[in-house]
């Protein structure tokens, strides 16, 4: 027989390693990386305090004026690093959740994970201050939320639709808890927490960047290792089992990875809305891929968040807005579009 042996595109490293890749996805990731880099450069150079592009290498090498050094190295660069890292973490977490729930609206934002992390942070910061650090509270909150979803859906993570519905309920309860915490708090504390709850990259330092970087270094390889199995689980538990994949274990592992990523990202910049929802969807459409493309989702998320933050800083109303307000505004439109599409598909 004459088989056209063209086969898939591969990334080869020696004889032992042959990774399946998608040429289009590689191109898309490179283009997005360029967009992200351009955004970084614009962010560093824009405005009264911005450093001209020509002087940037000198400042980065430590040869700028004190003011320039403060703007670039202390203020804007860590903020960008946190934005890129948290955006990537949100993107991957969203890709995992949308794959597990087989449902675009089944992202961490919609399913109550962001709200859970926020409630955890509010508990740690306002209700019982000093017991655990706020980031740890966010992580605990995310895990409590996902546990509630797991219990509430009755069949764990095996029933995607129930997961989404339960998640919406859990998210609502978590937000109620946040409101309660804010009402009980002093005015100053409440304002700080309220600002954080919008999701903001304002005044973030290198330690925040390090937090999210460590999370990515540990968790991104895990997500990559799980992505092929997740692809197969998307075809249904029986089909996955037939191919030798334990669907339940894959889901649980993937959810743990996604919760940790979300927790890390929320800890450093608050529950920035809808990046986790939109990034994987945009990535899937751009790459036309048939599975959760972890790298593409990460790059898209990173690009989206720094772009949105640039927009938030430059909105023409004289005030600097938290980035979460921009993503919530844009993402809300996108969520509505998604829901209408899903609804139409169900109705036809």
């Amino acid at each position, binding site marked *: 027989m004459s088989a056209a042996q063209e086969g898939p595109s591969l990334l080869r490293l020696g004889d032992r390693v042959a990774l399946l890749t998608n040429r289009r996805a590689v191109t898309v990731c490179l283009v997005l990386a360029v967009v992200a880099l351009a955004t970084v450069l614009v962010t560093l150079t824009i405005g009264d305090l911005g450093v001209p592009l020509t002087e940037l290498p000198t400042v980065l090498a430590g040869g700028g004026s004190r003011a320039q050094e403060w703007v670039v190295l202390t203020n804007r660069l860590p903020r960008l690093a946190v934005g890129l890292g948290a955006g990537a973490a949100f993107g991957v977490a969203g890709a995992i959740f949308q794959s597990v729930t087989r449902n675009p609206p089944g992202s961490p934002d919609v399913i109550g994970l962001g709200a859970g992390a926020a409630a955890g942070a509010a508990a740690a910061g306002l209700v019982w201050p000093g017991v655990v650090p706020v980031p740890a509270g966010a992580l605990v909150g995310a895990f409590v939320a996902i546990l509630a979803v797991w219990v509430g859906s009755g069949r764990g993570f095996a029933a995607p639709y129930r997961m989404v519905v339960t998640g919406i309920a859990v998210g609502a309860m978590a937000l109620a808890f946040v409101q309660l915490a804010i009402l009980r708090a002093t005015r100053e504390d409440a304002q700080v927490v309220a600002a954080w709850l919008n999701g903001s990259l304002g005044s973030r330092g290198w330690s925040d960047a390090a937090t999210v970087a460590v999370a990515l270094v540990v968790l991104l390889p895990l997500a990559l290792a799980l992505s092929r199995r997740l692809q*197969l689980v998307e075809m249904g538990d029986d089909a996955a089992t037939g191919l030798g994949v334990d669907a339940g274990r894959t889901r649980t592992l993937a959810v743990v990875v996604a919760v940790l990523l979300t927790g890390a990202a929320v800890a450093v910049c608050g529950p920035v809305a809808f990046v986790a929802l939109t990034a994987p969807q945009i990535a899937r459409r751009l790459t036309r891929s048939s599975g959760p493309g972890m790298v593409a989702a990460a790059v898209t998320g990173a690009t989206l968040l720094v772009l949105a933050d640039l927009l938030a800083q430059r909105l023409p109303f004289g005030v600097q807005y938290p980035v979460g307000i921009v993503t919530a505004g844009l993402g809300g439109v996108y969520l509505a579009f998604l829901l209408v599409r899903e609804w139409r598909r169900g109705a036809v």
Partner: protein
Amino acid sequence: MTPTTTAAGPGSGATGPGVTGPAAAPLRAERVTLAYDRTDVVHDLSVTIPRASFTVIIGPNGCGKSTLLRALARTLRPRTGEVLLDGEPLTRLRSRDVARRLALLPQSPLAPEAITVGDLVARGRYPHQGLLRQWSAADAVAVADAMHATEVTELRDRLVSTLSGGQRQRVWLAMALAQQTDLLLLDEPTTFLDIAHQFEVMDLCARLHEEGRTLVAVLHDLNQAARYATHLVAMKDGRVVAEGTPAEVVTPERIAEIFDLACRVVEDPETGTPMVIPARRPVR
């Protein structure tokens, strides 16, 4: 094309001399109790799939035939009892190793969005691949062979979502074939297909059987089952009530017992296999 209608009991067929009886069976359920949540669907059932047979499980709705198939394919874990693959309990084998010996076509798998036929069939190679070695020349050959056997090679670059039901079923079969297993389990492979596509899929299954594979299928259509099967397993209320060649199982008495249906059994004029003609009933 016509399957053999001579007796092909357990142990006969491809097994060597002295290796007869249930121990030589490629797949065997031993006193399994199968349940969803808390309701037992199948209770204390034992069944042996003869090597190189085309075994078809029949029975009325809710008799547990799909449940039994799911247990044989390890997508449902028995509450008690064991399923043995070549004599080894499935629970003691790694799922990936099982997937190199036993493939499953589930009742309604979900085609991922925006996937091409070639990519979907290639997913059947997963159990043969590694974390870092995700593709090899052997994979390419297996995928090409599977697509050739199911005649979907020309569809390679089409999106699965644009295919007709019959084409789509052939693509899923190709994915299962790409696993290169001796055992192939099919859960109602002809449901939702029109009659021409039903026979197209059944002919394909018969050919796969003739090439030496052991096939186990759940079918609704008795006449198709009788025409294509070499071994029939008839179930009712979670028990096996009859087992044997179509000629042994498809008799008026047995059909009346299994389905509560009065009927005549005639010879299929095309194949000589038994064919069920339901008795005329007074119109209410």
